[in-house]
């Protein structure tokens, strides 16, 4: 019997979400395969997924309190965070000293912080003449804050993607891939299907959106149920996730939605979390998942055809990047969530009908499913766990003679190309698009419709458009604003209805904002920019006209002013009488900018009698901007051919004579600048000719 000394003890730490827990379990499996006598201890937080998952695997679980690091440095939350972390480190120290592990394996996230820091503390204090090495595994292409900070304390770091390499010191980092549990890698389809009592002709669809669930997928699949009802052989397994917050409670929301369906579905099972997920996956014909690093790679390892719905608006847009990478190698079917107008306003959603169509398409096409599965398998990395196990054992200087020393295949370094070409922050993305198109947003009305040739200048147009649409759902108005601009710049026709709905949406802003002078949730700048976007989109049909009519009565002056400016871009179109009278009505507006723009626009739309009549009141107006508008209305009138007749011309001259103009001299005269400018243009002409 081995003494306590000879048994290797390893601490696994990480958690919060299952995405941090499952890789550790996979590593533990691989390690136990190499050395069956290893004893494990899992250190996690009480509120994490580990409480549900780890004990079922037969691993001991202890807790060290910890919490996520808040964003703002000088805040009450930061203070609370530091205090909790302090106690967490104390907990972890106690655990370390009693358990005396040979190594700590951390998967990142705040759950692993206490143990990692405790090990660092021991190292600094050099207590017990033994150092506990720390092995960190990073699952994402863009490493989280915890791992980035803890890297300096780690003995070795393993990353899943080669893009993450740049974040860590190269001397101790290696690409190892993402470890997947054995039950995923070698699924026994027959056994699983028998266990679930499925017959060979049955179609098994597994839907899950991560351990915490995904509202979009949950709602989407339930909405899709009516369209899938005519398939008697279809069995659906839906793991809706454990999220139970104030805003969204997964199970309740799903149940409520199920009630509203016309017929209750048969062959449909819904659970919160599937502990035996590998069995379901083994038996599955098709899955619908999110694009989290873990889920994707588990699917790839298992070689399953999948419909992937990435979560939009994540920092760095990581899920979309991961997913597109796989789509490029034809390993998955990509399905984007779109902003839609729901009960809570604008949210990301998936159309049930479209999803059903996609599912049916794949179920009816076993050939395509096979292709997807093969490509997925090729993309999957089956040996990551063993690679990590080898590394860990090397770190604790143990003999690895029991395992196959056959060199493991090199990890697939799928460097995500998309992560590096386009900036991910909304403002930077918009500025990049502006630079590529050589257009400035403020010049929207002058520029007019974006031409097809211009759009060709943009790389990856569909992604930029998707990004713009996704931004419309953001909480921060500044990001929504950038989303509107991007949609305008990329001339995304299909989002026109959404934009018009946002323009006319009257959901009020928060009470504090309203007290300070704000009006609606879609703030003034957003509404104004939507109208500018309409200029770029160049569409002018009934619904746009109706929206503009509505905008002419908007409480915010810049919206009215922009609407009037937009109308000038389309002055040649026949408009409804209501529109023309609405423009005339704006001339009486109290706001001077709107008044001026209204006069100018009316000059393009009204009959000469009306234009001269409307402007008559302002001939002697003392305010400069109003008189400028009046003059522009006359200029507009004169520019319209065949509209003026002699009588009107005489009337115009008469009006001009009554116009208030202090002196005739038009401009200040700068001989120096004028001469310079003249020479400049002469040189330009010469170059041109």
């Amino acid at each position, binding site marked *: 019997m081995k003494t306590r000394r000879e048994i290797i003890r390893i601490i696994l730490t990480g958690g919060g979400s299952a995405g941090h827990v499952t890789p550790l379990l996979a590593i533990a499996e691989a390690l136990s395969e190499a050395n069956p006598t290893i004893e494990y201890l899992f250190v996690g937080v009480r509120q994490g997924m580990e409480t549900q998952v780890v004990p079922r695997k037969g691993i001991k679980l202890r807790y060290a309190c910890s919490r996520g690091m808040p964003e703002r440095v000088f805040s009450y939350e930061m203070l609370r965070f530091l205090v909790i972390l302090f106690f967490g480190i104390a907990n972890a120290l106690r655990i370390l000293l009693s358990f005396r592990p040979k190594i700590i394996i951390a998967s990142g996230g705040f759950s692993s912080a206490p143990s990692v820091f405790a090990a660092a503390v021991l190292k600094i204090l050099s207590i017990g003449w033994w150092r506990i090495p720390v092995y960190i595994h990073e699952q994402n292409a863009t490493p989280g804050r915890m791992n980035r900070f803890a890297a300096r304390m780690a003995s070795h770091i393993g990353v899943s993607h080669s893009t993450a390499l740049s974040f860590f010191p190269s001397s101790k980092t290696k690409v190892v891939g993402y470890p997947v549990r054995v039950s995923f890698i070698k699924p026994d389809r027959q056994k699983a299907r028998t266990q679930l009592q499925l017959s060979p002709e049955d179609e098994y669809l597994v839907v899950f959106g991560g351990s915490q669930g995904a509202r979009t997928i949950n709602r989407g699949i339930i909405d899709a149920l009516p369209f899938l009802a005519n398939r008697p052989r279809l069995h659906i397994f839906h793991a809706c996730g454990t999220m139970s917050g104030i805003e969204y409670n997964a199970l309740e929301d799903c149940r409520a939605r199920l009630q509203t369906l016309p017929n209750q579905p048969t062959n449909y099972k819904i659970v919160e979390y599937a502990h035996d997920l590998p069995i379901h996956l083994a038996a599955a014909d098709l899955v619908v998942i999110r694009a989290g690093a873990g889920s994707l790679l588990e699917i790839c390892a298992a070689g399953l055809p999948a419909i992937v719905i990435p979560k939009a608006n994540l920092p760095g847009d990581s899920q979309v990047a991961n997913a597109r990478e796989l789509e490029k190698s034809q390993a998955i079917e990509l399905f984007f969530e779109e902003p839609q107008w729901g009960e809570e306003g604008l949210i990301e959603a998936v159309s049930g009908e479209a999803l059903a169509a996609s599912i049916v398409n794949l179920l009816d096409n076993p050939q395509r499913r096979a292709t997807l599965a093969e490509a997925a398998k090729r993309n999957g990395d089956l040996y990551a766990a063993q690679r990590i196990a080898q590394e860990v054992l090397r770190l604790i200087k143990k003999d690895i003679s029991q395992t196959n020393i056959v060199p493991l295949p090199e990890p697939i370094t799928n460097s995500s190309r998309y992560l590096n070409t386009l900036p991910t922050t909304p403002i930077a993305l918009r500025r990049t698009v502006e630079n590529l198109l050589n257009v400035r947003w403020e010049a929207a009305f002058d520029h007019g419709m974006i031409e097809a040739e211009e759009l060709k200048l943009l790389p990856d147009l569909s992604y930029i458009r998707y990004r713009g649409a996704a931004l419309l759902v953001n909480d921060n108005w500044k990001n929504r604003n950038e989303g509107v601009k991007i949609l305008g710049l990329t001339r995304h026709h299909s989002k026109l209805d959404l934009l018009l709905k946002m323009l006319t949406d009257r959901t009020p802003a928060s009470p504090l*904002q309203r007290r300070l*002078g*704000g009006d609606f949730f879609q703030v003034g700048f957003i509404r104004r920019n939507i109208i500018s976007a309409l200029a770029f989109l160049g569409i002018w049909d009934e619904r746009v006209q109706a929206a503009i009519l509505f905008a002419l009565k908007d409480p915010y002056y810049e919206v009215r002013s922009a609407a009037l400016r937009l109308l000038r871009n389309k002055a040649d179109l026949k408009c409804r009488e209501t529109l023309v009278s609405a423009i005339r009505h704006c001339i009486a507006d109290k706001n001077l900018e709107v008044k001026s723009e209204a006069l100018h626009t009316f000059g393009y739309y009204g009959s000469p009698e009306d234009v001269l009549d409307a402007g008559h009141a302002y001939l002697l107006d003392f305010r400069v*901007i109003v008189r400028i508008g009046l003059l522009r209305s006359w200029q507009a009138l004169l520019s319209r051919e065949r509209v003026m007749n002699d009588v009107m011309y005489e009337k115009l001259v008469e009006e001009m004579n009554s116009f208030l103009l202090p002196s005739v001299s038009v401009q200040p005269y700068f001989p120096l600048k004028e001469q310079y400018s003249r020479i400049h243009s002469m040189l330009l002409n010469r170059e041109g000719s």
Partner: protein
Amino acid sequence: MIAELASFLMSQGEPYGFLRVLLYISVRGIGAAMTTLLIMLIFSPIIIRKLYRSGFRDQQRDFDLHLAKSKQGTPTMGGIIVVGAVCICMIFWGDLSNHYLWLICSAFLFFAWLGFIDDRAKLRGGEADAGLSRKMKLILQTVYGLAFGLFLFYPATTPFPINISDTIGIPFLKPAAHGGFDLHLSWLYVVFVAFVIVAVSNAVNLIDGLDGLAAGSSLPPLLVYSVLAYILGNVKLSGYLLYPSLPEVHELVVFVAALAGALVGFLWFNGYPAQVFMGDTGSLSLGGVMAALILLTKQEFLFIIAGGLFLYVNITHVIGDRIGLNYLGRRIFYRTPIHHAYEHLGFAETKVVLRFWIVAQVLALLALATLKLR
């Protein structure tokens, strides 16, 4: 220097007695003003040329299509010339043994340096938003403000008479020395000083947006405070007008006069169309001087009237920018800073500048009118 020279020569004997004239504050003040004016007029062309050639040109923020284009390329950092002229003049005309002079010079130079770093960073960055971050600027200004406050507070270093060293000037209230009431703040005074310095030093920065606006609008408040300094420094006058007597503060008259002369000389070139801008160097240093001025003469609240124009611009900017543009997502004023709003409404730039000058002058006269109201 002139003062020392004059008193030295006078001690030599009778023939030099007429030099007593040079010791009078008014004479030294006007002399200083003339000197700086001459320096500006003579040396500015050369320095402007140099600035232009060295590439110190204005980088415009490019959101407003119409305004931005026309001013790009004008040499900036003209504040250096102003600072240089005033310093040279002070060495010559100033009484270097006076503590007030050193205090106000320190404020002048510190903020000039702050503005200089900001300007240089903007030039290197190539756009209007580079330069010291707002937070960094605020921290530096607060630190300086606290140091200044401590200096004014401790009896060992304060130039004020010790019994009133921590009072602030309440308008219309007679000080204790003349039968009224003094508000003592003790250590809160340091915080108050820091607050005033941070608040006022940014005042001029914002108004520097049109040709001749900053320089022309700062002249009236500066002159008001120089009059005050003259009164406060003169025992008889301050007693007559019921102001607390601050001996030695009259030296500030010379400084402000020099600064005024330099500003007039600067306006010679800065008027529309401008040949040079003062940049952050100039506007921050002007703001710093004003802050120090109102603190050293202990008439802080008079600035609400005398510097009312600056308050107007700054308050509308805070409301329009912080609340409007950033929080509410809509404009509250047509444009901020408010002088751009008037331009947006169609007023010519020169008209806006002139009207602002008129307002500044009227407010200054109003402030002076309150002198007798005690």
